[in-house]
């Protein structure tokens, strides 16, 4: 038995083996870009990469505060496309069935919420308690005899600096995956990660692909950076895929913002031979697709110089030391012998 930090419970070592039985491995093909649905907390209409205002940020602080009274609110957007900067609002599909689930600290099993639709493109929800909130938008569409099953997921943190430590600890150890999710991606936390930690460019980040809470080996996992750079790998036996969060923010020096909020998108996909019916139409295979987006920020090491820092510090110490020494030297009075004429 092992403690699983993702599911927040003890698990058997052989759990992934069980999954292998249930999945039929399909040929590894390139991910298709056009119909990828994902959730972002940045509207496509908002200025590109503007620094997160207080309250912005996936996994960061909630929006709200200011003149808003009541619990903090969060608005998320369902987008379509594989380029974080070029993605557009997802269009409604009459043939698709959409389910939206909101997992809150008080309802870890989740509750259904109205899906984004005509007249309200955003998903808006309240965050009354401190902790992580997860949204799953599951879309099913039938394409010939293949069922496309897409689970777009977002994880949002609601924490205040005045919150108590126990609440933070509880949030950090709470389960992060749903046991009944058809497929989902979980971002693995960095060592010593806390509720206010941010993903920084340059760090290695791993993601785990899960199906019904169990790791999915051999899934095609693709990481897309803010500027559209992408890399595709296959998940290992533990369902894990590792990526380096590349630094892709190189503005002119005068325009650099160290709080620049960039968005990454992770897409995981695999095919399974499963037969069933969807809206009374039979299918013989299922294409599972999961998406997860998040934010990352410039590395704190960017634009920092040890040479200049130490140079300035040492120069100040040296100059002030020399100045003190010279000042003291100047105040020294040379010895002068005074002879008294005793005869006078």
């Amino acid at each position, binding site marked *: 038995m092992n403690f699983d930090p993702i599911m927040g419970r003890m698990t058997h070592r052989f759990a992934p083996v069980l999954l292998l039985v249930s999945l039929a491995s399909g040929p590894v093909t390139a991910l298709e870009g056009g119909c990828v649905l994902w959730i972002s907390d940045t509207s496509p209409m908002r200025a590109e990469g503007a620094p997160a205002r207080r309250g912005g940020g996936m996994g960061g602080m909630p929006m709200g505060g200011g003149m808003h009274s009541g619990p903090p609110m969060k608005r998320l957007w369902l987008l379509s496309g594989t380029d974080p900067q070029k993605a557009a609002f997802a269009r409604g599909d009459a043939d698709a069935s959409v389910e939206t689930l909101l997992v809150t600290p008080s309802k870890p099993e989740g509750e259904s919420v109205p899906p984004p639709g005509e007249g309200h493109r955003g998903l808006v929800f309240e965050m009354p308690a401190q902790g992580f909130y997860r949204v799953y938008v599951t879309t099913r569409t039938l394409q010939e005899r293949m069922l496309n099953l897409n689970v777009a997921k977002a994880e949002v943190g609601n924490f205040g600096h005045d919150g108590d430590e126990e609440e933070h600890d509880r949030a950090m150890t709470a389960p992060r995956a749903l046991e009944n999710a058809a497929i989902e991606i979980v971002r693995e936390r960095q060592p010593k990660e806390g509720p206010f930690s941010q993903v920084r460019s340059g760090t290695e980040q791993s993601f785990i692909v899960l199906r019904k809470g169990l790791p999915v080996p051999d899934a095609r996992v693709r990481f897309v950076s803010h500027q559209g750079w992408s890399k595709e790998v296959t998940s290992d036996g533990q369902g894990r895929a590792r990526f380096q969060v590349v630094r892709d923010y190189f503005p002119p020096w005068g325009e650099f913002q160290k709080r620049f909020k960039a968005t990454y998108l992770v897409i995981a996909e695999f095919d399974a031979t499963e037969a069933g019916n969807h809206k009374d139409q039979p299918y013989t295979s299922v294409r599972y697709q999961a998406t997860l987006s998040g934010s990352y920020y410039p590395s704190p090491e960017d*634009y*920092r110089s040890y040479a*200049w820092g*130490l140079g300035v510090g*040492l120069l100040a110490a040296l100059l002030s030391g020399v100045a003190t020494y010279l000042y003291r030297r100047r105040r020294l009075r040379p010895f002068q012998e005074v002879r008294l004429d005793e005869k006078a």
Partner: protein
Amino acid sequence: MKRLKDAIDGVDLNRFRIWFQLAMFVLLVYGGYLAINLGNHLPMFACGFNQEGRGGICYLMPLQHQLARPWPQLFGMASLGVLTGFGIFWLWFIFLNKGWCGYVCPLGTIQDWITALRRRLGVRYARYTQDQFRHLSRVKYVLLALMILIPLGIGGGWFSRDMGTPFCLICPARMVLPLFTGDLSHLTVDFSSKTAVAMTVLGMLITGLFLTGAFVKKRFFCFFCPMSALHYLISRPALLKLRKDGDKCTRCGDCYRACDMEIKAIADDVKNADIMADDCILCLKCVAACPEPGALKATFATITIFESTEAGFIKRCQKGIGLDQPKR
């Protein structure tokens, strides 16, 4: 009871202080490794930038963060958070008054270590003239005012957010204390914006001056410390007090010579019973150096806990009462 009191009054204060300061330094700089967290409202420089080992956080850091909130928030519900934070800080403070500076502050302890090094090297220390003293002692109030006004200006959109916590950016504790846990990342100049360059260069300049200043002048930085100014402004109801009985004072000046902060009023003022000046760090070296029984005393909630006695003075004289006597 009398034997206990005699033992306390005759204590080797310097030795006691060295060990107490060392214990507090370990607690506040390495306490985080033992999961110790005293909160983020501490009334001295337990630096929050010492992320790995800190056992608590200096209150000035969250205060600046809070004051830099957008005005609608700051003057709305968030003001309750500011007031609550200040209340917790005040509760911590009233216990030790400025004793936090003399006995607990890690940056103060480092300055005492640098002073000890200078003494061992036989280099004489510097003193201010009374004119310099008078003018320089105002600097900390200017820094305190700027430390409050700049974050308010950030919240109002007048200053860049890169100024963040302006005093922390120039405070030598940010550069020096993380070094003790192997974090060198603050010994840098941040070129990410013009404001960041200016603030980090200023921070490194002050750190250089701090090292030299602390070497030639006892408690060099405490003279300019805005926390010290804030302490003094709220010190009236504090429990730990330094008191003087002017009738018993002979104005020998031993207390002034022992004072690291060069507070002359401690020797000259024979009228006021509450003798603590704004630069005082309540190290109580003046009480230990006083030969007149009951002339100087430290009280906690009006109960005398340590007072000058002839016997204690003689006992300490035999060990050296802490007057700095350079070799040459």
